[in-house]
């Protein structure tokens, strides 16, 4: 870890090391930071900065003079591409170089605290901070701020005129909906926090920031509702995040692995989403969202097993439809987990469970197939997975072509060549479709792995193997916790009160309370009888009947 740091700063010894902002993390926590202060000489400051930023061609140093006769030397330092160049030109350089001198005379400039004056009245920009340490300046520059240094002052002004190319708000690619907001997070943390803030206009929404990653200095935002999230949870999340000491955080996936309760589990214990509405919903249930700069994926903790089988659209569509879709999804989940292994177990161990006609038909199809059912299934499942992977990695038009070639041509050809039986193709296809119904990609992946494990168990011990596998999975799930929450709640430990939003989704007006997982503050989502308006004395239930009459 130390090597690249030194390379970056040359071999200039202790001074540089002190100024080195990255060194800070290497020190044991709790010790005071030692950093070099800015000197009052512009030359010296610029010298330091040039040294630090040596061989970094994207750092722009612009020195100039202020005042009619150019008595005061000043400089701006910024990273090209991270700033809004118009802002810097129009509002910063123009202000001090052209407009300031008009405002007063040179006498004033020498006598007054020029820097204060500039800060107070020259920059028509909202974000101006002062900094006295080189480290702060370097940090700020690297984050996209523009540093304004003035000769004779050991204070630098950090001007927030950030601006870089960002992706426009787009529909989230992994979580598209038919009904619901179509905006997804982007790669810029600030935009993402603004998206959340736009959903929750409450002063209780807190977004705390921290930086992680020695090299990447990634901004991390921890968002929570102060009145809903428990203090223990918030401090637990912060504690776990602060423990992280790594080089880089390039995606929220890095964090996920660092903060999970059980890193050896196949199941993701942290929910991830691209959707601001999902984050907002999570926050309003007392959860904590972790936003990471540079990725559109936010993390939500704690995450529960069933949430991986729910989509945010469930809450926007009519509740009966949502409930039906949920049931369908649970069924699809089981199918995609179990179908191939059940097929193997039943056709090789428990043939009596098939209806006679089906048995004969499968037997006829398998006539001449050279492989045992297990190998056949393995072959097909692996090629299916390969096709899926190929389809994802290739550019979209080619990906589609690959899928078509794979699905149609290979499938058809292998059946007519007698390598696999048509029944197996159906099984694999149904499994594949079902696995796409599972809304969460993380869960879909773990299921794919488990499917193979169950297939092996089925091939060696039949239904007993499958049952043993399922029991093992359930036990594993029962031991898992996500930030202290039992992973399988509210199923077990049982919280019947939370079941309104588990297997089915009951109408919004019946969900009077938030899920009682997070026991703090006001549990009530809404008043009882929210649906009370003239003619609705009976509460919501009477509504349907009334409308009919």
């Amino acid at each position: 870890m130390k090597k690249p740091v030194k390379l970056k700063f040359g071999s200039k010894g202790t001074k540089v090391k002190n100024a080195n902002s990255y060194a800070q993390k290497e020190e044991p926590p709790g010790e005071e930071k030692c950093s070099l202060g800015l000197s009052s000489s512009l030359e010296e400051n610029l010298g330091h900065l040039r040294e630090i930023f040596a061989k970094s061609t994207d750092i722009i140093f612009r020195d100039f003079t202020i005042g009619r006769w150019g008595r005061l030397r000043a400089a701006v330092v910024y990273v090209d591409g991270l700033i809004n160049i118009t802002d810097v030109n129009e509002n910063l350089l123009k202000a001090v170089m052209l407009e300031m001198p008009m405002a007063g005379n040179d006498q004033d400039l020498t006598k007054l605290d020029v820097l204060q004056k500039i800060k107070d009245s020259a920059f028509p920009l909202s974000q101006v901070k002062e900094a006295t340490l080189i480290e702060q300046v370097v940090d700020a520059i690297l984050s996209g701020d523009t540093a304004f240094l003035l000769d004779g002052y050991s204070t630098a002004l950090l001007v927030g005129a950030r601006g870089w190319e960002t992706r426009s708000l787009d529909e989230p690619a992994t979580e598209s909906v038919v009904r619901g907001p179509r905006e997804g997070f982007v790669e810029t943390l600030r935009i993402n926090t603004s998206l959340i803030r736009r959903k929750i206009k409450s002063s209780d929404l807190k977004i705390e920031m921290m930086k992680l990653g020695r090299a990447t200095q990634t901004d991390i935002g921890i968002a929570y509702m102060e009145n809903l999230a428990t203090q223990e949870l918030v401090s637990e999340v912060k504690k776990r995040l602060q423990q992280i000491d790594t080089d880089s955080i390039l995606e929220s996936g890095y964090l996920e692995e660092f903060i999970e309760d059980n890193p050896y589990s196949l199941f993701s214990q942290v929910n991830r989403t691209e959707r601001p509405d999902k984050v907002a919903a999570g926050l309003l249930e007392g959860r904590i969202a972790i936003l990471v700069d540079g990725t559109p994926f936010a993390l939500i903790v704690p995450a529960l097993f069933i949430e991986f089988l729910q989509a945010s659209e469930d809450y926007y569509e009519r509740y009966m439809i949502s409930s039906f879709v949920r049931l369908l999804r649970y069924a699809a989940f089981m199918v995609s987990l179990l179908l191939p292994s059940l097929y193997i177990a039943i056709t090789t161990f428990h043939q009596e469970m098939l209806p006679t006609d089906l048995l004969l038909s499968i037997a006829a199809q398998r006539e001449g197939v050279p492989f045992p059912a297990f190998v056949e299934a393995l072959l097909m499942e692996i090629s299916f997975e390969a096709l899926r992977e190929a389809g994802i990695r290739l550019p979209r038009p080619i990906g589609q072509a690959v899928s078509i070639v794979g699905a149609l041509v290979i499938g058809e050809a292998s059946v007519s060549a007698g390598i696999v039986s048509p029944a197996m193709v159906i099984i694999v296809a149904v499994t594949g479709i079902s696995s796409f119904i599972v809304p969460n990609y993380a869960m879909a992946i773990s299921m794919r792995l488990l499917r193979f494990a169950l297939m092996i168990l089925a091939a060696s011990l039949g239904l007993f193997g499958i049952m043993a596998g399922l029991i093992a999975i359930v036990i594993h799930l029962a031991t898992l916790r996500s930030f202290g929450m039992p992973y399988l709640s509210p199923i077990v430990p049982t919280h019947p009160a939370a079941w309104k939003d588990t297997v089915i989704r009951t109408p919004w007006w019946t969900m009077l309370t938030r899920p009682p997982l997070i026991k703090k503050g006001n549990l009530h989502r809404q008043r009882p009888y929210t649906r009370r308006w003239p003619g609705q004395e009976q509460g919501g239930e009477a509504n349907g009947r009334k409308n009919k009459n």
Partner: protein
Amino acid sequence: MIVLLLLTPGCWSRKEINDLAVILAVGLDQEPQSNQLRLTLQIAKPKSLTAGTKQAGFGPGQKPTWIISGTGDTIFEATRNLATESSRDLYWGHTILLVMGDRLARDGVNQVLDFFARAQQPREIMWIMVTRGKAEDILRSHAELESTPAQRIGFLIRSKTGLTVNLKDFVTMMTKTGINPAAPEVGLATVGLSELKKLPGPDNDEKGDQGNRKNEMPPQAKLTGTALFREAKLVGWLDRKETRGLLWLKGEATKGIITIPCPNHPKEKLSVDIMRGSTEITPSIARGKPVFTIKIKMEGDLKEVHCPLPLGEPATIHHLEKEFARDMEERVRGTFYKIQKQYAVDVIGLGNHFYRRYPQEWKILAPRWEKVFPEVGVEFQVQTSIIHSGFLTEPLEPWK
């Protein structure tokens, strides 16, 4: 994982589905000379059974099933002998049918049924039947709509036109006190075209040689009646009509047709379709002897009326109902006479009804039940009602 994979192949209970010889039906006979069991298995040939789409039916040489038979002292021994002939493992899990030849049945069936009840593969719901002659012939018979005789008989049974007895029912009847088992009888008959073919020549008898009748249907399996058992031994038969009576007595008849002569035009007929019914048997003791009241209630719909009848009049309907009841009672009496007097086997389970009502008295009666049963007094009460008459009220008549 690798260890697991290495452990598994070949051994244990793992069998690929196409390595199975799926037995659809089993025939059991007793060899005339050696008294050994003769086991006939009807094994499905999946390829030719399901090849319908590709080859447009199976050719004359392509029979959908393969029939093998072998002998042994026990069924299991016969099975082992047959297993050496079959290239695939014999698989009993889908056996629909068990047919027993009458020779074997007369000798007692409890020994052979033990195998099927004990083994894991055969199902308890396989149908049990008896045939006069050799069970092997039934298995070798032809099936027209279905692909195999086993399936044909299976469908025949499910349509509930005759007695339906599966292994579990039979074993229950056999082990239970105060009831004797009965099983449907299956026989061979040329069905369908046979009526037409009867006209031209003399070769209309059932055993006519196959060569002359190429265009005619080969004989097919058909439910022809009921086989009556005393304990586990076959003792007699009922024909189709009597079987229906037996079904009513046992309270199992859910469907069936009764045709009675019209009340005012004895030559013309009318038919009633029985929709539902129930039978209630009440034992009682009169002068130290068991007496039974058998109350049969039937509901039916008028299906066909050949004679002019004022059906709008309730009195007509009442009259019809009475006629209908009398006809039923006659048939029931006929059947009962046969089982009570001729064969003296209590297949209805009167003894069992008595046992439930009078457990103490039954203890004395039970050992002599075989002797007592032919003497018991039985009173029949048949009640019928006609509920619907189809789309018509009055029957169709030309204008006069």
